[in-house]
């Protein structure tokens, strides 16, 4: 019997006796016989050392990033998190709490979320942030639906360079109300959005929103993004921004973004095979009643003391039901806590220093790879921060990465859509650096890439 179900003092007999029943069978007479099941067939329970042994045995079949020179980048990153972050996130007053429905009992989490919202507002240059969404991709999905509440139309424009996963998520969020997601072509040399395409699409009057990502799916900073809003007029602009990049890049609110979403995982949250992540969402004040998700507000208690609660709840599913701005209930509060603790421990200057350091390392990697024949690095002639795209002259990305793996180099990830039948325009790989990347790692990558190109050349 698992020790988490308390019976040390004969609880169950006492409870049964008090109810005047002999066994718990008497409590299930309302479940019809025909609906009953037999054994589940999942085996007997294990005691704690056995569970630890079994899970550890399985986990040891993973090889964590520290076993490699890793250049995996993209929206999910491997970034060092100061030990103080996990120490706070591990406080069970936070992690064993529910959504703060009873404000007076939950001031700690409410104040934390208010600080988190404030931080995302400061970073984005917008006015209001919500208390978190699931991840960057679903936050973009919510932003799509949000735009549709602000503006008529059926087409939502996104960069054709958007990672396929995010495009797929957006297409799902669009599908319910019968909306369409459409790719904005990019310049083959720079990867920059084709602003003329946007202009002519907007002229057809059916666009209800445009999303641009900073950095974009190729890792590059598109200097055309700040010009989008002047083309769009009343049509809302969504910027999907990497939070670390905002330590050195202009706040999107300053160049006309109406919504800024983002993936917050890099701030104090481990990659954990892709989850939990953290969805960020900010918008303009005049649109707050159309915003999705929980929002914490400041108010006072009966003694005039500063206090916080979940506010503007009439937007939400538990009140508005089918007319809610979103179905979201459980969000990512604990990850929001990690985000704000991380940013506070590292500090605004520390964040900017980290971003500049990563950019320097990425530059070193690019110049090493760029010197090789048989691949183009960076593929696009545009500025970048931590990530950039490599394009192979021959062979497939999978083959190339596999050869690198044999030398214990995780050389990035293929940008191709893995679904059978998906178009594969070119063999492109997104590579990224982290603070753990050393000069030696970079030399190792360049040497392994050289060897892989040579080997592919021989087999071709």
């Amino acid at each position, binding site marked *: 019997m698992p020790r988490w179900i308390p019976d040390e003092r004969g609880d169950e007999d006492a*409870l049964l006796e008090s109810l005047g029943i002999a066994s718990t069978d008497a409590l299930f007479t309302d479940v019809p016989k025909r609906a009953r099941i037999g054994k589940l067939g999942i085996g007997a329970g294990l005691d704690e050392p056995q*569970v630890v042994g079994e899970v550890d045995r399985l986990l040891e079949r993973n090889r964590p990033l520290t076993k490699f020179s890793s250049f995996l980048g993209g929206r999910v990153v491997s970034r060092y998190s100061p030990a*103080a972050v996990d120490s706070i996130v591990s406080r069970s007053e936070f992690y064993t709490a*529910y959504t703060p429905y009873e404000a*007076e*009992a939950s001031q700690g989490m409410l104040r934390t979320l208010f600080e988190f919202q404030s931080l995302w507002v400061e970073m984005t240059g917008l006015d209001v942030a919500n208390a978190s969404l699931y991840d960057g991709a679903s936050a973009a999905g919510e932003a799509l639906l949000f735009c549709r509440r602000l503006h008529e139309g059926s087409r939502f424009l996104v960069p054709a360079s958007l990672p396929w996963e995010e495009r797929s998520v957006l297409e799902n969020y669009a599908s319910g109300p019968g909306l369409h997601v459409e790719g904005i072509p990019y310049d083959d040399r720079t990867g920059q959005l084709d602003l003329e395409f946007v202009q002519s699409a907007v002229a057809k009057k059916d666009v209800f929103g445009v999303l641009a990502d900073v950095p974009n799916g190729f890792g590059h900073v598109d200097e055309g993004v700040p010009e989008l809003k002047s083309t769009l007029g009343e049509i809302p602009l969504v910027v999907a921004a990497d939070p670390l990049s905002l330590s050195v890049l202009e706040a999107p609110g300053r160049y006309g973004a109406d919504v800024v979403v983002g993936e917050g995982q890099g701030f104090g949250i481990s990659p954990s095979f892709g*989850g939990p992540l953290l969805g960020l969402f900010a918008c303009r004040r005049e649109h707050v009643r159309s915003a999705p998700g929980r929002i914490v507000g400041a108010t006072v208690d009966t003694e005039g003391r500063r206090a916080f609660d979940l506010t503007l709840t009439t937007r939400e*599913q538990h009140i508005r039901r089918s007319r809610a701005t979103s179905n979201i209930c459980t969000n990512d509060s604990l990850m929001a806590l990690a985000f704000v603790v991380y940013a506070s421990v590292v500090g605004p200057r520390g964040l900017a220093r980290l971003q500049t350091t990563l950019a320097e390392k990425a530059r070193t990697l690019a110049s090493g790879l760029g010197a090789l024949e048989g691949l183009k690095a960076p593929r696009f002639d545009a500025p970048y921060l931590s990530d950039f795209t490599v394009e192979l002259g021959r062979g497939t990305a999978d083959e190339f990465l596999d050869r690198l793996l044999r030398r214990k180099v995780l050389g990035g990830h293929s940008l191709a859509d893995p679904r059978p039948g998906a178009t594969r325009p070119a063999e492109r790989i997104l590579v990224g650096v982290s603070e753990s990347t050393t000069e030696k790692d970079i030399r190792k990558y360049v040497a392994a890439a050289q060897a892989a190109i040579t080997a592919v050349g021989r087999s071709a």
Partner: protein
Amino acid sequence: MTFRQARWDEPAIWDLAPPRAADPPPQVSGIPEKMRRKEAVRWPELSELEVVRHYTRLSQMNFGIDTATYPLGSCTMKYNPKVSELLARRECATDVHPYQPESTVQGSLEILWRLERILARVTGLPEISLQPAAGAHGEYAAMLMVRAYFRDQGELAERTEVLLPDTAHGTNPASAAMAGFTTREIRSKDGCVDLEELRREVSKKTAAFMLTNPNTAGLFESEILEIAEAVHNAGALLYYDGANLNAILGITHPGRMGFDVAHLNLHKTFATPHGGGGPGAGVLAAGEKLGPYLPIPRVVKEGRRFRLDYDRPKSIGKIKTGYGNFGLDLRAFAFILSHGEEGLNHIARRSVLNSNYTAAHMGKFLPRPFGSLVKHEFVLSGTPLKAKGLRTLDLAKRLLDEGVHAPTIYFPSLVDEAVMVELPETESKRDLDAYIAAFERAISDTPENLRAAPRNLAVTRVDEVRAAREPLLCWKDLRGASAKAETP
């Protein structure tokens, strides 16, 4: 019992060390001028100790399961075992990237695969996806699957409507609406679905009927097989909201009850922590009809190897980055391994035992609108409080002063002044008796004291009306408000 929550006079983080006038941050070469940040992010520069002290103090002004009984109905606030926390923090669990080659993540893939196989048995539905980030996310994905299914059947133009009982969680109609369906509520009779009404309402226009069983009144829908038959006879699909699965583990399951698709909440039934509002982990379980529509990738086993399969032509695609909240999947896996077959069944039996015991005692203080036999949770009506000029809200706030959390209130909405209580299997008889005693003290207190509650927490009653009427939603708003106050 006297209880006092910590009441730190803790400033906001920006008031600990107000940021100076913002200089431009250091620049990355190559970034064009118009993309450069002109002013550094306005946030305080603090020592690590200052940050740790700040958030430690805030944590002390927060209830969690580890500090207090937390009987929120439909939330299943059970103990979150520490061993799960320990395992989820192993380097081989945390420091693993979702885009690593499959050969380097065989452990993660096997854990996902094994958890899926277990959940297939628990739900009686063979096809599983762990991708949704939370329960509502799972509901939404399921409704997109329903949509894709009827599109393929050529019936989508006609089947535009999702039915649900008036006891449904708010997420159900919201998820169905987001997936493009109109929703309509079926009236309940004595707290359960009115089968006759359902038979009248379900039609060729119905895409799905969404139901949780036991329902939010804490009652088992005993006519579930007839409900399933009625829904299926109309060609519609039956959806299971797994929020209340705790009560039926090993007793029955969605598959046996006739459901076509289900979502589960690992953060309820399988004890992964709620994190103060998230992260959660939703699970999708589907039968034959909807299995092919589950999100990609699916985890498959080939020989002794595991891989991610993207070759599912009917799949709805992706609903989030990655494969689900792995950190939580791992915690749930450890929880299920610990319990095993008997343990899971014991969870259902004990949670229902706790619930009936507490209902019998708390029913002496407030009326119980529905029959006497309940499942994992029960509902009381706070209507009698009105005679004293009180509301359920006052009772809830007074309970907080006892050092315990309040039940869910004002839900389900078909009960006037509803009080919805769930005391999962990990609460001992001593905890239950203490809660009953606290409830009795609270309800027997004077109306003045109830209205003045809470007094023992970090703050007294919070002015929610003011919060909504004059929204102050971030630091910038507070700066604006204080600037306004200083202007004569």
